């Protein structure tokens, strides 16, 4: 059944179909519709979950940590300032190895106050030890929330997952979405197991106590390897999802006409659809263009990126984010993945669309063309795309 849903409501339906039984949330634009829809589901009786209205995002994650520790399938959603405020507890949740899922309608950070689309919020938490998956469409938002629980609760993983969606570009945009059948979802995602341990008075354990330098490093090594090896579980989930519902998102990467490409745009999020459209236009002109959408940011698919880009002439990495003083976050990940190749492609970074500035098919056409020109000229300087000089000179 196709239903017209916004990205936010797609996330809420994903949580409903996952049969979550705990929500703790605090509203923030542009994700508020997610938790409002979930409140409606609980109120209507379609969702049997404990819904806790907390006073902050920090408490929302703290409550999810508690609920997940005793075996609940816990969900929350946040964005921008809310996510950054939650950061302390986000680190706590992942190092506690709790399979919480959180949707993030990715938005710029102030000041100045801005509610527009930007990925700096989720990427600021890339080192928080969570799995991070980013969607291109509302359908992928819904499907990924369900897949996220399957991945998070796998005994080889036991880590929380963030599902990213672009503010407004997905969160408030409505398009037809296929609602998966509940019975098939239940088959894909059985109830959470009580393995390997739950917090319980009958079987008391203590968690998160003081650790000594003698074992702290080993615990971090286990966290790191579990996160790194989650790649296989993410791929398995994508494959099984495809066999059940006929939809695959490529697992770690969504590769579009990259195999024989001479120029490739690497990008995160919904505007990859516009980049693909630009690649189609250029192919008609005889330019071999491709698009590589990074679907999974953590664990970063370094080997896969390396394999796909090793034979490409020129690569444009498009960042809708900024690490001030360094530059684009994605471009540094991609460059680091490519470094050990004997023969590396040309890489040029672009900063685009900060604070909700739209990125169009025309913009991606310009980026493809500029990258080929920069390749010829050897111009590797980071390009702030379409900066308004009048504003700068004021």
């Amino acid at each position: 059944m196709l239903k017209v849903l916004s990205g936010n409501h797609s996330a809420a339906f994903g949580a409903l179909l996952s049969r979550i039984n705990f929500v703790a949330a605090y509203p923030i634009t542009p994700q508020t519709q997610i938790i409002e829809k979930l409140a409606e589901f609980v109120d209507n009786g379609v969702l049997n979950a404990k819904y806790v209205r907390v006073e902050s995002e920090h408490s929302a994650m703290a409550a999810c940590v508690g609920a997940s520790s005793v075996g609940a399938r816990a969900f929350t959603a946040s964005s921008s300032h809310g996510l950054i405020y939650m950061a302390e507890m986000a680190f706590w949740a992942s190092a506690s190895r709790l399979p919480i899922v959180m949707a993030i309608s990715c938005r710029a950070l102030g000041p100045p106050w801005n509610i527009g689309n930007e990925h700096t919020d989720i990427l600021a938490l890339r080192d928080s030890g969570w799995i991070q998956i980013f969607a291109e469409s509302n359908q992928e938002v819904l499907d990924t929330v369900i897949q996220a629980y399957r991945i998070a609760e796998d005994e080889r993983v036991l880590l929380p997952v963030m599902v990213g969606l672009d503010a407004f570009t997905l969160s408030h945009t409505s398009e037809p979405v296929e609602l998966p059948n509940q019975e098939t979802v239940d088959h894909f995602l059985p109830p959470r197991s009580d393995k390997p341990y739950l917090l319980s008075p009958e079987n008391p354990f203590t968690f998160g106590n003081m650790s000594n330098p003698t074992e702290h490093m080993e615990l971090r090594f286990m966290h790191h390897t579990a996160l790194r090896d989650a790649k296989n579980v993410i791929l398995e989930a994508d494959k099984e999802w495809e066999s059940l519902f006929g939809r695959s998102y490529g697992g770690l990467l969504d590769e579009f006409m990259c195999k024989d490409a001479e120029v490739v745009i690497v990008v995160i999020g919904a505007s990859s659809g516009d980049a693909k459209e630009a690649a189609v236009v250029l192919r008609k002109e005889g330019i071999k263009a491709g698009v590589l959408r990074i679907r999974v940011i953590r664990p970063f698919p370094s080997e896969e990126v390396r394999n796909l880009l090793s034979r490409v002439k020129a690569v444009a990495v498009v960042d809708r984010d900024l690490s001030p003083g360094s530059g684009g976050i994605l471009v540094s990940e991609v460059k680091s993945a490519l470094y050990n190749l004997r023969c590396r492609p040309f890489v040029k970074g672009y900063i685009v669309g900060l604070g909700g500035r739209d990125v169009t098919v025309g913009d991606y056409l310009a980026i493809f063309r500029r990258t080929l020109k920069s390749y010829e000229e050897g111009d590797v300087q980071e390009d702030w795309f379409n900066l308004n000089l009048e504003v700068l000179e004021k």
Partner: protein
Amino acid sequence: MLYEIRFHGRGGQGVVTAAELLVKAANVEGKWGQSIPFFGAERRGAPITASARFSDAKLSIHSQVYNPDLVVVLDKKILDFMNVTQGLKREGSILINSPSHFSVMKDSAYKTWLVNATKIAEELGLKMAGWTIVNTAMLGGVIRIFNWIRLSSLIEAIKSNWVGQVGELNAKAAERAFEEVQIA
């Protein structure tokens, strides 16, 4: 087929809902559409826009609409201070909520359609917090001009959006506008 529509109205007039309802109407027929609201610092009464994009096949693009085929104006006062035809395709159309005798966009090269959505909504008692709600009436006019989605599909989308009397009245508004819309 790619057809893009931009709605101009004021915050609280149901502009975003109009774009979404039209996509729901297309979905009734299994046709693909996407509604794209534009958000800034909105508040009640401020001029706002929302867009909708329709296609025979699913599209993966998500950028805003810049070159619409149709511009829909829910409040004609907006024409006084805003260039609503910006980016409108050369062969594009404009639909304005206006009495038929009111001459607007006279020297416009675009095909201009008028429907008195305010009168229709007022006669049907479509009011919310003191405001006459014209969005569903405007959609009746859109269906007539766009000619790609059936009126019955819009009625179905409206009735599943609002159950009972509210749905009935909004459906009636769309039906009346579909009949009454005319070229200026």
